[in-house]
């Protein structure tokens, strides 16, 4: 006999909680995503390909994914460092630093966008300093990179922090008694233990950066082929009521981010199985 889909339970509220969950999930998330996929289906694969296979679209997609990757890599390194400092060290200002990590979650992206632009524009506080050495940040790919680092900043720190808290001191001590220097211990014992969580944070930061719009458009300059990000192309198509093209680019973005998440999830499953804890 097959197991029932829903096991009998003495708990009340099955009908209500299931009804509310599935109805709202459908209306708010599933049906709209379905509408996008349906639009793509009626437009057809050749149509999607024709839309995407243009220099301007390719360069926007490539730009978005490349800079997101760089920003997520930066956040991977800095995020692990930050998590380590926040968990292991005691120093004045630690609580403020810890709370500040979450600011990119709390600060609206448009606010972050205009503020970063004000700072890094040629007449801005950091922009002027950079200009002295002939480095232009705002309205170049550097500006996009900085905005993407900002929005992805909290992810790695917040996934790695609890793991550092749970590391047994004895494991580090064991490494030291076996003659390993502190650096050797960090490199060969601690970093491998943090890797799965850091990878999760990296994936989240990457997914966030790829889709980011608000904090980027102000600082990007939005020059086609140079600093135009993929989400902006969707907006441009929509403003021209070109729904098919917008849907085509949207589907391409959706597919690429899902593929990336899938790859990262597979790496994680593999590494967890290898280390042997699930």
């Amino acid at each position, binding site marked *: 006999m097959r197991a029932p889909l829903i096991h009998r339970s003495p708990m009340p509220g099955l009908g209500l909680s299931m009804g509310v969950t599935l109805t709202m999930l459908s209306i708010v998330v599933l049906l709209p995503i379905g509408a996008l996929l349906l639009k793509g289906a009626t437009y057809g694969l050749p149509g999607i390909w024709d839309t995407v296979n243009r220099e301007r679209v390719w360069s926007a997609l490539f730009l978005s994914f490349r800079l997101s990757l760089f920003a997520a890599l930066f956040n991977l390194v800095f995020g692990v460092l930050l998590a380590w400092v926040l968990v292991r060290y005691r120093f004045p200002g630690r609580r403020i630093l810890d709370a500040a990590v979450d600011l990119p979650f709390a600060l609206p992206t448009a606010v972050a966008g205009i503020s970063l632009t004000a700072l890094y524009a040629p007449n801005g506080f950091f922009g002027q300093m950079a200009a002295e050495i002939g480095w232009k940040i705002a309205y170049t790919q550097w500006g996009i990179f900085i905005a993407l680092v900002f929005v992805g900043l909290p992810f790695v720190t917040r996934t790695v922090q609890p793991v550092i808290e749970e590391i047994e001191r004895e*494991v580090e001590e064991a*490494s030291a*008694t*076996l003659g390993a220097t502190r650096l050797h211990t960090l490199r060969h014992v601690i970093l491998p233990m943090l890797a799965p969580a850091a990878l999760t944070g990296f994936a989240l930061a990457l997914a966030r950066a790829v889709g980011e719009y608000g904090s980027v458009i102000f600082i990007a300059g939005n020059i086609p082929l140079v600093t135009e990000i993929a989400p902006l192309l969707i907006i441009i198509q929509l403003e021209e009521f070109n729904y098919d093209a917008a849907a085509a680019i949207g589907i391409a973005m959706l597919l690429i981010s899902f593929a990336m998440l899938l790859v990262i999830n597979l790496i994680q499953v593999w590494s967890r199985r290898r280390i*042997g804890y699930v």
Partner: protein
Amino acid sequence: MHIEIDEISKQFGTTAALHPVSLSLPSGALVALLGPSGSGKTTLLRILGGLEFPTSGRVLFDGQDATGLSVQERRAGFVFQSYALFRHMTVFDNIAYGLNARPRASRPTRAEIARRVTKLLELIQLPDIGARYPSQLSGGQRQRVALARALAIEPRMLLLDEPFGALDAKVRKELRQGLRDIHDTTGLTTVFVTHDQDEAMELADLVVVMSGSSSGGRIEQIGKPQDIRARPATPFVRDFISA
């Protein structure tokens, strides 16, 4: 190696963990530090291993002052209560860890490392588990791997913190003999911490009975098991070994 503990005391903040204690452990002895929790036995073991530093006093190895030696320089094979195996490494890599961590100049070749690990796996009578991860081992196997890992660095002494604490009664009995055999094979001065008086009496050549108090742990009696049984030096020892 002969170990001399000279008036060692330890304070954690305002709490005293060890009242000044002195102790002389002859080379090649198998010594039990026996006492209830709070008697400072683990602190004393960690001071020997270089994981804690004494508030006052000295540690001498073969007459040389070793108090200032860092944990890496001590070359003490330390087996932790939780074993502290590296769970992201295979058994082989766990045992080879100490050799791989050496500076390049003194690091054995790969082949030499493999040879030594294989030999150690044979010593602990688990020749076929090199490719497994710690999570795939039983408690008793983990303990023996931790022992092999500690032995791989060619330690000057072997220090074990409650080596049988996490095991069930049957495995405990088997592994006691295992530790005795390894001690006899290697001839290393071996110190283990336990709160189980049977274990101490059955296994050790020399038993150090410790007790705790608000002024820190202190040594109640040092002696051969049969002497301690026959002539407990203090009421505490009498109570503790008859418990």
